[in-house]
């Protein structure tokens, strides 16, 4: 089984061929948007951070930015910064070149002489990169080149009953074919950590699973909050989820049954093959951003209640196990997984169908979030701005 992708100069394989206009901080986000809106073939997003952050939060932002630029779906990047922000241009560029040798252009608004000059030059840089990118021809690559990120949001009991087991089935298939699957959302391991720990490759990975949960809870406790307070959410409860344990047990199904090979910190590069865990928050756009920064080319997102979430860099395939939600939110949801509950197909048959869908999307089929232009990005954070 193969997909059509783009080979990058760093050897990685992309499933999209975008040029990224990367705002290094909130103060450069509008200029980046203006450049991107003029040049077809580019993507951008609203970076709400990049300045006035404590060092650990700033590192998350730096890792997200470097990971976005290095993501295999990106041909090359135009970095736009204001000039005085904490995420200084040289720091951002250094983080990017640690991860990849793909083309980078830079623009500092305060040095260019304002936004009009920056936008003009940025458009020219972007045009150049887009033309180079379009010279690339697609080639076929094995599934072992794929990294999928799995996410759930707006969960209801059908998530644990249908959509997550289906994504778990797919995850196991990708892993068996030599690919990589990322299980995310540390907050949603609470109450199910013992099950994940049993599947760890070794003692070190097992300890890391407990460690990321403990660290997450402690970081919230340090500001006087409890992770359990927001979980399950009002929407989860209305759908029929009673406790955090119930939500977590449903949530971890999307990682299938494979051995857990590694636990990766937020937005750091995914280097192991097989099933890995990334330490991300339950907040969907920030969790997705972390996995894409880690190198995921495609996200599989299950939702009981239905959500429009997309991402500028990678296609987000949305799946619901709730037939009412599918009917209600058809414009935003790609796959109806309610057949896992109601039949006639078996989970195995539906897993094959979902794999076919993933290969089609990898080979260029646009998902609904891409067609409708959903590009939200947020970043994991620990505390208030400094």
């Amino acid at each position, binding site marked *: 089984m193969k997909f059509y992708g783009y080979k990058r100069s760093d050897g990685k394989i992309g499933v999209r061929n975008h040029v990224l206009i990367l705002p290094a901080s909130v103060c450069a986000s509008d200029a980046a948007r203006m450049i991107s809106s003029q040049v077809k073939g580019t993507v951008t997003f609203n970076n709400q951070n990049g300045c006035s952050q404590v060092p650990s939060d700033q590192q998350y932002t730096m890792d997200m930015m470097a990971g976005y630029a290095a993501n295999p779906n990106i041909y090359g990047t135009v970095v736009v910064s204001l000039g005085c922000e904490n995420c200084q241009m040289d720091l951002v560029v250094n983080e990017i070149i640690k991860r990849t040798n793909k083309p980078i252009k830079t623009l500092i608004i305060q040095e260019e002489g304002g936004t009009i000059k920056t936008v003009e030059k940025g458009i020219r840089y972007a045009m150049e990169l887009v033309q180079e990118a379009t010279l690339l021809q697609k080639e076929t690559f094995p599934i072992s080149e794929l990294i999928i990120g799995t996410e759930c949001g707006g969960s*209801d*009991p*059908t998530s*644990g*009953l249908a959509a997550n087991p289906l994504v778990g089935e797919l995850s196991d298939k990708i892993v068996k074919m030599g690919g990589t699957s990322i299980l995310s959302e540390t907050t949603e391991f*609470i*109450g*199910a950590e013992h*099950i994940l720990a049993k599947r760890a490759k070794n003692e070190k990975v097992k300890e890391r699973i407990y460690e990321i949960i403990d660290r997450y809870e402690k970081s919230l406790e340090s500001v006087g909050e409890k992770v*359990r307070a927001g979980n399950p959410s009002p929407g989860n*409860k209305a*759908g*029929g989820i*009673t*406790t*955090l*344990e*119930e939500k977590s*047990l*449903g949530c971890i199904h999307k990682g299938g049954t494979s051995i857990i090979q590694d636990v990766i910190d937020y937005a750091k590069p995914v280097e192991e093959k097989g099933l890995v865990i990334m330490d991300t928050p339950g907040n969907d756009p920030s969790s997705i951003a972390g996995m894409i920064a880690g190198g995921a080319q495609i996200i599989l997102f299950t939702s*009981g209640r239905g959500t429009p979430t997309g991402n500028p860099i990678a296609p987000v395939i949305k799946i619901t196990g*709730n037939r*009412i939600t599918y009917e209600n939110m058809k414009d935003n949801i790609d796959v109806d997984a309610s057949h896992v*509950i*109601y039949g006639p197909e078996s989970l195995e048959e539906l897993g094959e169908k979902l794999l076919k869908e993933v290969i089609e999307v990898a080979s260029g089929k646009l998902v609904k979030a891409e067609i409708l232009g959903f590009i939200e990005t947020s970043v994991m954070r620990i505390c208030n701005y400094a």
Partner: protein
Amino acid sequence: MIKALSINSIDNVIIAIEPITKGEIIKYKDKKNNIRDLKVLEDIIIYHKIAISDIKRNEVVIKYGEHIGKAIIDIKKGTHVHIHNTISEKN
């Protein structure tokens, strides 16, 4: 028509996969595809949980073969299991 599913053989709750009306005797399917009957004592919203045995106060509620919380009052077989009678053990 099957109106509920049992996920694991040791579970003491099942999941409604259709809306259920008070007093109905429903058919539900267990993991081995055996069909069983249950008299449901209240209206149940689709995808919510129903007790298939009496669960006493402080006893655990089991779904996916795992603890998902404990009963804060006695829960009768055939009634709705949710936030009004079950809380997290992790609090």
